[in-house]
């Protein structure tokens, strides 16, 4: 499985590239008034408003740094069969691809109820890599809000 690797706070995270629609530079984001704290903002992607989540803030770290390698990963909204609705996640060090063998032994994540789940943990060299699952990543409330905003019946 080929992974797009990036950094969420201190953690190295990988995401199956088959889930990724596009990786784009960090664009100027607009924060809608009254939006939730984890929403980095929205931007217009080819005529469509796309919300962007700052995973760093959602996970309780400092906001994603303003580096050239901080990029937006566009993913299709789960449950949208047509695949038209997208949301973005803002992450740091989005600059590498890594091949991880399928079926590599993984430890399931230890997450409190309502906590952000960055996915199961696998060994990667001397360190560990989290295998991000976009469906499990967001707390239920945040996921519902994104689905509602995208106009997908939850």
């Amino acid at each position, binding site marked *: 499985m080929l992974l797009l690797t990036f950094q969420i706070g201190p953690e190295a995270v990988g995401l199956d590239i088959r889930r990724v629609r596009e990786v784009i530079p960090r*664009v*100027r984001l607009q924060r809608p008034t009254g939006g939730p704290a984890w929403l980095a903002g929205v931007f217009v992607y080819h005529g469509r408003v796309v919300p962007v989540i700052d995973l760093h803030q959602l996970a309780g770290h400092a906001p994603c740094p303003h580096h050239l390698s901080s990029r937006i990963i566009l993913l299709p909204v789960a449950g949208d069969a047509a695949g038209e609705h997208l949301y973005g996640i803002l992450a740091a060090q989005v*600059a590498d691809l890594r091949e991880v063998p399928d079926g590599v032994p993984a430890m399931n994540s230890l997450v409190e109820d309502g906590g952000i789940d960055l996915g199961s943990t696998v060994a990667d060299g001397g360190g560990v890599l989290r295998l991000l699952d976009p469906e499990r990543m967001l707390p239920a409330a945040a996921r519902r809000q994104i689905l509602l905003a995208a106009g997908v019946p939850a």
Partner: protein
Amino acid sequence: MTALPVTPTDCWNRIGVRGDRSCPELVQHVHCQNCPVFGAAGRRFLDAPAPVGYQDEWAARLAAPVEDEGGDRESVLVFRVGGEWLALSVHVLVEVSNPKPVHRVPHRTGILAGLVNVRGELHLCVHLAKVLGITAPAESPTTPATGRLLLVRRDADRWVFPVDAVDQVHRLPRGELRRSPATVSRAAADLSRGVFHHRNLAVGVLDERRLFEVLRTKLR
């Protein structure tokens, strides 16, 4: 992953390929560009803050609606020979390279310029201007900065010809081709499928099938 130290120094300039080549890692990596230390140093550029205007520029670029690529399109490479802008389908294009020395063939003149070595293979080099009857002088003289060699191939035939400048690959809707104006020389008109307008220039699209036929018969 190797355990090489990620030094904040420019070791490639001191002991690497741009220095005295004394670095022991060169035995394994051959060139600094394959070495993880060099790669890590390059990646540090991405840790710099984005330049002023970068975020706004990308926001504007991504906000634009997707260009409707409807209809049948073909890709042609636009280049200049003498005073004429021409285009050739990318299907026959193999390589665009920097100018290389042309070795003349004794007792052969005319459209055959000679032999050219491209990546170790010898190819026949032809004067496209003479094939097309282009005599108009170039509006800007050929300089080493803009001159290129084009290597083209169709079936087993390979030809190289020098051009005075290469623009870019243009996505051409098939319906956009107009008939060549009557001012175009006879030879050029026979070898062209039509013209299209690109940046206020009339670009003649060469018929690759006819061009290869003519080259083959003239140089038999």
